[in-house]
Every structure is written in structure tokens, then in C-alpha cells.
């Protein structure tokens, strides 16, 4: 079965050059001492690079619309996972409570198996 070309091929080398340029920007930006600059250089650039790869290399925008929706829904599920779990794993306190670090000196209960390491 041969491929019927379903995409117009842009200049891929040009896209690649932009991606490499962005890589250099992110590395240089990471050496800054300003926190916001580092974050934008790191994650802002990553988002742009990912978008460029998805659009120009994977041709997601030319693909049937529902494929994009499928991928976005999967990301949405991860966002839901994060939202549901972060209050327990990420935060160490709320309005009326704190999560105290585990007391290393706590002794196991009577009849319990010996502590592992």
C-alpha cells in the first residue's frame, strides 16, 4: 500500500534551525539569576518547541480534528490527576492543619516486623 501524501511538506530544515535556536535561548536563559527568566527560558521555550514539532513534524493541524481532541483530552486527564493528588502530595499544610514530617525516632508497635533499613 503506498502513501497518498496527505500533507504539504514545509521547509523542514528551517523549522529545525528555529528549534535549535530556541534550545540555545533556553540554555542561555537558564544561566540567568532572575527566577522568572529561568522559568520562561525553560518551560516557555519547551512549550513553543513542542508546538512546533507537533505542528510541523507531526502535522497534527492537518490531521482530522478529533485526533487533536483525543491528545488534548489525555493531557486533560493528567491535569485532573494533578489537581486531585497535589493537595495531598504537594502541599504540606492547609488552613487549619499541617503535615508534620515523619518522626524518624518512632518505634514500631508491639509484635510488628522489624523496620526495613
Amino acid at each position, binding site marked *: 500500500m503506498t502513501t497518498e501524501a496527505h500533507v504539504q511538506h514545509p521547509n523542514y530544515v528551517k523549522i529545525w534551525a528555529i528549534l535549535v535556536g530556541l534550545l540555545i535561548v533556553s540554555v542561555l536563559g537558564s544561566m540567568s539569576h532572575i527566577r522568572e527568566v529561568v522559568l520562561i527560558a525553560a518551560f516557555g521555550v519547551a512549550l513553543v518547541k513542542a508546538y512546533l514539532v507537533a505542528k510541523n513534524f507531526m502535522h497534527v493541524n492537518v490531521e482530522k480534528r478529533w485526533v487533536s481532541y483525543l491528545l488534548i*483530552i*489525555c493531557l486533560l*486527564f*493528567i491535569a*485532573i*490527576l494533578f489537581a*486531585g*493528588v497535589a*493537595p*495531598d*502530595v504537594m*502541599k504540606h499544610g*492547609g488552613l487549619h492543619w499541617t503535615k508534620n*514530617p*515523619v518522626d*524518624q525516632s518512632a518505634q514500631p508497635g508491639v509484635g510488628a*516486623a*522489624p*523496620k*526495613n*533499613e
Partner: protein
Amino acid sequence: MSTEVQHAEPGIFRKYLWSTDHKVIAMQYLFTGMAMALIGAFFAYVFRMQLGFPNQNVPGYGIVTPARYNALVTMHGSIMIFWVAMPVLIAAFGNFLIPLMVGCDDMAFPRINRLSYQIFLLSALVLLSSFLVKGGPFGGAWTAYPPLSASGAYNLTPIGATLWLLAVALEFVAFLLGGINFTVTAMNSRAPGMKMYDIPILIWMIILANIVFMASAGPLIAGAVMLLFDQTISTGFFDPTRGGDPLLWQHLFWFFGHPEVYVVLLPAMGIVAEIIAVFARKKIFGYKTVLYTTWAVGFLSFVVWAHHQFVAGVDPRMANIFSITTLLISVPVTEMVFLYIATLYGGSIHLDTPMLWALAFIAEFMIGGVTGIFLGSSGTDIYLHDTYFLVAHFHYTFVPIAIIAVFAGLTFWFPKMFGRMLNETLGKIHFWGTVIPFNVIFIPLFITGMAGDQRRIYNYAQFAEQSRPALQHLRTTSTIALLVMLSFQLVFLFNFFWSLRNGKTAGANPWRSTTLEWTVPSPPPHGNFAEMPTVYRGPYEYGLPGRADDFLPQNVPD
């Protein structure tokens, strides 16, 4: 277009063990699942004997020690969900029926299909191998919470724990591969003329179940890798003394675990839908509504998971949110059940064995559903969590799914699969001998659970505050009912294997159904259709006025 298969008649190896034919692979999954069901049922027998007759020697097993009790309940749960419900409901029925019901000759990727079964078989063998290792099979509950599951010193089954994890991981890979194959086939390989709303409900259900599985399994696969490393190479992902968090595992597990119950529910409901349409001689009431409510259930299933963790020390504000979503999800599920009842209303009901099973599913599952309301509300759950009330609730949902709906499907499609009819009388004896004892097993457990009986305890006598000797007669009743139920399964096994050889020969369409699988010979030949069908209408055209027959198959031109 006719199918021309140009190869010589294959030998036994290629035909039964190395085949890429979806029907053969379906049988492989079915028989593996049935064999695992016997093992899972045996374990239930053993631990219920311990609970009904504490500290007595169990015939066929021996004395149940606390460690063995933990391993028994762990293995029972894991096997029934991962190695019985999923392979039979999704892989066996899905494999057999999807190409037939959508009108094509096989799955889109037959070799990936074969690979999925092989990986699945490997996962079953890895699990079974854990019965032979030092310490025995994993005893940390099918939910495998760390630190118990991460530390061999705590769970006393260090090798079993890792083998269990590997088996589950392999099973996931098998179902991811298989599920994606099913989805592509149903999406792309349909017969000409079969539009989206002409697809039989069972196919929709299996596909949506696969999508839900695929989207929810990912985080647990990540979690399983982390737990594996915690078990074997001293990482501390879930160890609070090393910066980890055991709650993370719980969340990752239940983020999968809750959608998983809908993964097994959906195919069961699909089987019931097909059967009630045929045996009420009536179109499914509200096909599109059934579909939309299923999508709603599928999506909502992703936002209810923490109702399994209300008492685990999660953020109390999360408990509020998850209570609301949990109660919300009961709405579309109930709506689906109402649509089925509406289908039955005014229909010409024929109480053949498959229909009896389908009706039993509806009744028993409703009991499971309403008891879930008490558990899904965080307030009452504080009392009821991890009591036998919970055990009875999930058996009132799981048994209809994994046993009742499976028997419904098997008795319905047996003629198509094997070219023979099952014996109706034996079928009805088996039905009543299963359903009545099932209720006698679990209604006492609702009562003991409400009285406070905790689960996963091998002997209440050891724990003074747990011990309620006055309730022992209920526990014993439950055990005896299980013995009765298990005995009646012999009727099914006899009926099944005897009818394979000696049952009445079945024609192509003994139930007078409209869907495409009934237009081919029983059993279907390699390639399924001599002439690839074209579809002209939806799948439930029954009772049409002005026609001699009370049904109109999908592939008959107008």
C-alpha cells in the same frame, strides 16, 4: 469482494497455538480466563471456609494461617479482576465479536492481536509462578498499598510481591495492545453502510471500555515502575522517611482503579443490551441516549477515584468534591438501567437462559448500585469503609459483571462460537443454582458489615473489639451458600463441555437476531464472510409492522 485465503490447511500448531485468527485468539482468552476463574474461586472457597469455620482444617487446602489468608484474598481479587473479568469480557467477547459484528474478516492487525494474547498468557504464568516461590504469592491486597507492598519485611512475600507487580504490568501491556487494535478495527474496518449509530451497542461499549482503560492505566504503569524500584533497588518513592509519599501510590492506583470498574462494567452492559433486544423482540429504547450516557459515565469515571480514600488521610476538601462527583455518576448509570427496563416494557419476552441471566444482571446490579450511595458519601463511608458492607457492595456489582453477564454472553453466543446449542434445562438449573446462593452469600455480609465486621481479618477471635460471636451464624451461612453456588458451577461445566460435542447442531441464527454475526455459519469459517456484507440499517430492527418476520437483519437490502 470475496475473501481468498491462499494457504494450505495449517497444522495443529498454526491453527490453535500460533493463529492470528481473531476467533481462535478469542477462544484462547476465554479458556485461559475460565481456568483462572477456577483458581480464583478455589481461593474464595478457602478463605470463606476460614471465616465460616475459623481455624479448622480446610478440605483440599489445610490450615489457613494469617499470612496465607492475606495471600488468598490478594490473589482472589487480583485474579478475578485482571485474569478473569478483563480477558473474558473484553478480550474474548471483543475478539470474537468485533470483526463479525462490524462486518470484516479479522482485526486490523492480526499479528498484534496474537502478540497481545501471548503477553497476556505470560502475565498469567508469571502470576502462577508466584505460588511456587519462597514466601508464596503476594499478600499485600490487590490494592498493594506501600509501605506494606514495598517492603518484604512487612508483607512477608518479597518475591511474590515483585512477581505480582510484573504480572499486572504485563497484563496491562497486553490489554493496551489488544485494546488499541480493537478500537482501530471498530473505527476503520466497518462494513460499507455501517454508520456510527448503526454499530451494535456491545461494540460501542467494548471500544469505550478500551479507551477508558487506555487513558487510566498510564499513571498506574508509572506508579508500578516506582513501586517496583522501591521493592527491589531501595528507592523511596513511597517512603515518607526518604521524601516519598505513600498517598501518591493510592492516588495513582485509584486513578486507574475506579475507571477500571467501568472498564469491566461497560462490556457487561453491552452484552445485556444485545440479549434483551433479541429476547424482548424489541429495539433498544433510546440507542443514542444509551450512547451519550455511556460517554458521560466514561468521562465521570475519571473524577471520582478518591472515594476509595475517604479515610486514608486525604485533604478533607477533596473528600467533599469526590462525594459530589461520585453521587453524580450514579445518574447516568441509573439512566442506562432505566433505558434497559424501558426496552423490556411492552416487549415480547422470551425467558430463555440468556435472557434470565440478562434480567438477573439488571436486578442484582441495581442492588450493588444503591448500596454504593452509602459508600460514596464521605460521612457514612467513615463508618462503612473496609467493612463487609463494602465487600458486599462490590460483589453485588462485580459478580453481575464478571459472572452473570459472562454467563449471559456465553449462553447466548455459544451456538455461534461452537456450532452447537447448550442444553436449556441444565442452563436454567445452573442459573437458579447460581443466582439464589449468590444473594444468600452476600446479604448476610451487608448485615455483618453494618455491625462493624472489618475486611481482611483472618479471624475475629484474635481481636477482642472485633469479635462478635453472635454474628458467626451469618458468616457461616455465607460460607455454606458459597459452597452451594460453587457446586452448581459443575452443572455449567458439564453442560459446556458436553454440548461442545453432543449439543444439538446450531444453525446460523438460532435466536433470530438482526446483527451481522448471525448471518454467517456457526461456527464462522476463516475469513468470516464469503461475501463481505453491506449494511442498510441499524442493529435492532425488531417488530416491524407489515412484515412476515418480526426481525430485519442489518445486511438485507430494503
